[in-house]
């Protein structure tokens, strides 16, 4: 089973402050453990929302809203992708993460293609395939 672990932004991360050496050390050690256990597939941190943007969709209108965005704790600062045998295993790993101060880390299971069922029609899959072909050609 694949999981996404979502780390929310904080006023500090939104201000572009880098973590302290101690925090970085703890996180590096934790990441190493995840990799060595064969659990971590991917993971990255995100730039502050001031460097991001949002697009609002309304009919045919596309309105661009530049960052930063308010409500830091509803923004994402980073994520991991994990492969675990069960949700309980993912939970056990998450409990070992070096977080503190009331921060809430979210654990979500990633959909498998099978979970979409009939929604992903053969036509949609064909389209995906064509896009992939174009991407491959450009490489």
């Amino acid at each position, binding site marked *: 089973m694949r999981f996404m672990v979502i780390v929310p932004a904080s006023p500090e991360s939104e201000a572009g402050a880098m973590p302290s050496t101690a925090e970085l050390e703890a996180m590096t050690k934790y990441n190493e453990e995840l990799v060595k256990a*064969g659990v971590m597939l*991917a993971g990255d941190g995100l730039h502050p929302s001031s460097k991001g943007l949002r697009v609002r969709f309304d009919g045919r209108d596309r309105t661009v809203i530049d960052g930063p965005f308010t409500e830091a704790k509803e923004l994402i600062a980073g994520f991991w992708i994990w492969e675990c045998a069960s949700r309980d*295993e993912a939970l056990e790993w998450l409990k070992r993460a070096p977080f503190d101060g009331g921060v809430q880390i979210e654990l979500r299971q990633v959909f498998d293609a099978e979970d979409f069922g009939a929604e992903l029609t053969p036509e949609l899959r064909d389209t995906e395939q064509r896009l992939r072909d174009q991407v491959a050609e450009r490489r």
Partner: protein
Amino acid sequence: MSPTATQRTIDAVWRIESARLIAGLTRIVRDVAVAEDLAQDALVAALEQWPRDGVPDNPGAWLMATARRRGIDALRRRVTLERKQELIARELQTLQQLDLADQVDELEDDLLRLIFMTCHPVLSRDARVALTLRLLGGLSTPEIAHAFLVSEGTVAQRIVRAKRTLGEARVPFEVPGRDELAGRLSAVLEVIYLIFNEGYAATGGEQWTRPALCADALRLARVLAGLLPREGEVHGLLALLELQASRLRARVGPRGEPVLLADQDRARWDQLLVQRGLAALGRAEALSGALGPYALQAAIAACHARAPSVERTDWPRIVALYDALAALTGSPVVELNRAVAVTMAFGPEAGLELVDALAEEPALRGYHLLPSVRADLLVRLGRTAEARAEFERAAGQCANGPERELLLARAAACA
């Protein structure tokens, strides 16, 4: 926390901690069977205490401390009972080691030593696979039995016998020295490969793939790559498994039937695993002078992973990689695969010539893919009557239900 929630937590902690726990205990007691018993005892203690007292902050350390305490108690009892001078001396030394067993750095070396032990050539292949899944994968006996479609009794017996063999052969708990390493490492890689393959193309039963088994093998390969980061062929195996696994969900049709590479919906290939596989292959290439057999197979898989379609696959490169692989392994199965690649690169006549040359190969006798490949080539050449007979012959030799049905359907299509 409710009892069932605690039970689930204990299962999860076991899955995470059991390999390191058993490895650390094996270093102390020098007997993998005793080590596993101690670890199991600690698990039983957890089952009793955690629902009552709550799950400890560091469950892994708790299990280790409990297992060690029980180990000390057991040794003390034996020492008092047996009273043999030599024994006392030896056991006391062990006891002292118990107190020194705190060095955390050692734990990773222990894990590596345990892998080399459970994959030791003194054991049969079946025993290596069962013991590795049990001690390093954290799988229970019923889980292993279910994965390999044998009875729990068979697996339990296999594991007991394997542990006894290791003890009788006095297999040391150590990482092999340089002169021995290559051979011993290839035995380890083979075990992981066998586990993966059983999940990827089940040899028997009514399911074409068993993804959970593939996930277990991938995890072992990832762990091993972390333990032996300088060994190119370990990354080669990891690359191969990541790339093969990226196609898992495209390999099975809606009714559980196999979907062959040529017919797979490539949009369903798992791009995260593809990228991880290509990265691992890059590491293997950077570390190795000449690619080993797993890295070569990974390089072939990478050709498919990079290709937008069957037609636009770099078949001549695949043929060249199969040439290298055939030279390295001398395996008739590799020759058979090479014949398929030659067909794609240079046409079915060239492929059929190679396949026919393999017809008398004793190693391929009864191997269903030989008539199956031959049938495929005959179809391409328009020789459908012969193709039909070959598909039927292949179906008769195939033990996997869905795959057999596919072969029969292809035979029927050769009207």
